[in-house]
């Protein structure tokens, strides 16, 4: 069922009329979602394979690709507005994969006042936007925080962003704007292990989708070169000996305990994989809907779900990618298994309906909103029945 209004059925579309058939999209798509008709040269998008990384969008010289999220117009208008709002002429663009928030940006880049822009992969930012930001919107410096290239959830996004920044910097210098106006850094957020707490159960060794964990001298040891920061091992560690950089369990607990709940129910917590839903710029929800973006549904911890219920949250919605889209191999599958197990236990308290797991994909722009709407209805029903009783 479609919500009335607005968005197209799919998030990406190739516009045949403006397409010059250069096939840059075909060769740059990391997921082989764009096919080339051998006879006509026409480019065809296989939406089922598309992960909406927007590398094609940001690379298309003919601007023949339409995209819903972070397109040129919305980025431009965001920057124009944000320049006044934040009273700053520095722009920080970060990939969600490399930082959940802007907390340590000050330390990383040595700036304290800036316009924040958080995107799912910096490879989606077209060179035109960087040029426009400097030349037209009068931003003085751009700082980009990308993921390490072997950590990029869209395989080539970080690499493409790095090459693009080099080219744009050279161009800006030639045009006389100045040298190195765009600064580019890469990093990854990985597992942290406390060997003293490890009980050698081997869960991390078995479940790590990247074979990064092994037991050495009676405790878990991680090869951080291999770790991709999905957080599955953290969620499955029975000894609470593991944590994920910048996604620390305590940090998530603090967010949950600080949720400002409305007095009238329902209060709903959505823990969503940051690759399953691409929020629009300036995304806003009713004040009783609380959103926490997660590095992967695999890091949705039953302990955090229980904390939310204890805080008085009426319903918890877990939003994951479809299993075949999971950016961390088995993260979505394991998240579903863990949620199902917790639901079974919660059924003993009559709470199972208050927890729901769903899979969505950014390629279907309405899918998350639709799931949220249905869940909200369900929780509203539960709450109103409670009031009657």
């Amino acid at each position, binding site marked *: 069922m479609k919500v009335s209004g607005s968005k197209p059925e799919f998030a990406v579309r190739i516009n045949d009329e403006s397409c010059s058939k250069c096939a840059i999209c075909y060769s740059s798509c990391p997921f082989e979602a764009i096919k080339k008709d051998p006879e006509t040269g026409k480019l065809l998008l296989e939406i089922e394979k598309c992960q909406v990384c927007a590398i094609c969008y940001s690379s298309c010289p003919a601007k023949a690709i339409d995209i819903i999220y972070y397109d040129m117009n919305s980025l431009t208008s965001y920057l124009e507005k944000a320049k006044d709002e934040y009273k700053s002429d520095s722009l920080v663009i970060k990939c969600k994969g490399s930082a959940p928030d802007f907390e340590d940006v000050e330390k990383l880049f040595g700036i304290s006042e800036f316009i924040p822009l958080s995107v799912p992969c910096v490879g989606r930012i077209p060179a035109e936007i960087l040029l426009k930001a400097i030349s037209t919107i009068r931003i003085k410096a751009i700082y980009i925080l990308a993921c390490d290239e072997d950590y990029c959830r869209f395989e080539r996004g970080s690499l493409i962003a790095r090459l693009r920044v080099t080219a744009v910097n050279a161009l800006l210098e030639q045009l006389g704007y100045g040298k190195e106006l765009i600064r580019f850094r890469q990093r990854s957020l990985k597992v942290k292990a406390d060997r003293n707490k490890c*009980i050698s159960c081997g869960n991390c060794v078995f479940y790590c989708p990247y074979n990064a964990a092994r037991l050495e001298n009676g405790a878990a040891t991680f090869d951080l070169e291999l770790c991709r920061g999905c957080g599955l091992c953290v969620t499955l560690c*029975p*000894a609470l000996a593991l944590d994920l950089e910048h996604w620390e369990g305590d940090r998530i607990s603090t967010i949950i305990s600080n949720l400002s709940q409305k007095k009238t129910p329902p209060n709903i917590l959505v823990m969503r994989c940051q690759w399953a839903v691409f929020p629009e710029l300036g995304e806003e929800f009713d004040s009783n809907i609380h959103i926490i973006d997660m590095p992967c549904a695999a890091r949705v911890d039953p302990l955090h779900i229980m*904390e939310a219920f204890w805080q008085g949250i009426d319903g918890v919605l877990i939003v994951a990618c479809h299993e075949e889209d999971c950016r961390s191999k088995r993260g979505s599958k394991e998240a579903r298994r863990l949620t199902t197990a917790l639901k079974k*236990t919660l059924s*003993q*308290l*009559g709470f199972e309906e208050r927890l729901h797991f769903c899979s969505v994909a950014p390629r279907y722009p309405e899918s998350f909103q639709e799931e949220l709407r249905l869940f909200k209805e369900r929780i509203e029903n539960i709450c109103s029945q409670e009031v009657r009783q």
Partner: protein
Amino acid sequence: MIVTAQKPLDEILDFLSPYNSILIAGCDGCTQPPRGLREARTLAQLLELGGKLRGKKFNFKAMTMPKQCDSYLTLAALQPQMKDMEAILSLACGLGVQTIAQVLPDFHVFPTQNTLFIGAEIREDSTLEERCAACGDCLLASTGGICPIARCAKSLLNGPCGGSQHGKCEIDPEKDCAWDLIIKRLEKLGRLSALDEIRPPRNFGEVMRPGRVSG
């Protein structure tokens, strides 16, 4: 591994009705699934929620220890935690509960688990399967390393029985016929002749309960 299953929350909440301050003691030993700190905290949260629904407020303290069946280690881990505590909930197998009862005779200790069997974790299927019956008279040398006592529904010494169907047991088509596994394995090893000899009934007089080993 000792395989346990958590008791219904209502049953645990009933145990706790006379108490307010309760220590939840995990065990990092061999219980499967692991019943360590994460489980202790999760159970505390579930019981708090359950208490809330019953209109009762608990004060839980969740902790864990290396192995609850070790009386020395258990006493050392629990003693400093017991101030203001009224009762203990154990996440360990039946051994852990009894060890706590022994080392802290002044406290009431309750199990949160039903202890099921000695089993192996089949991680690929997220299941736990009984593999050893602790029978006291190990046959594994002649059965290709597969135990018919623990894994055959009838604990047959000379199998299979007529209920073996396509490698599965007639009592549950989800379960493998242990004797089918044994024969296939011995065949593969070229040791089928190990089954030529008929095994006589076992001398149960050798296996005295309760078991005790000295020294």
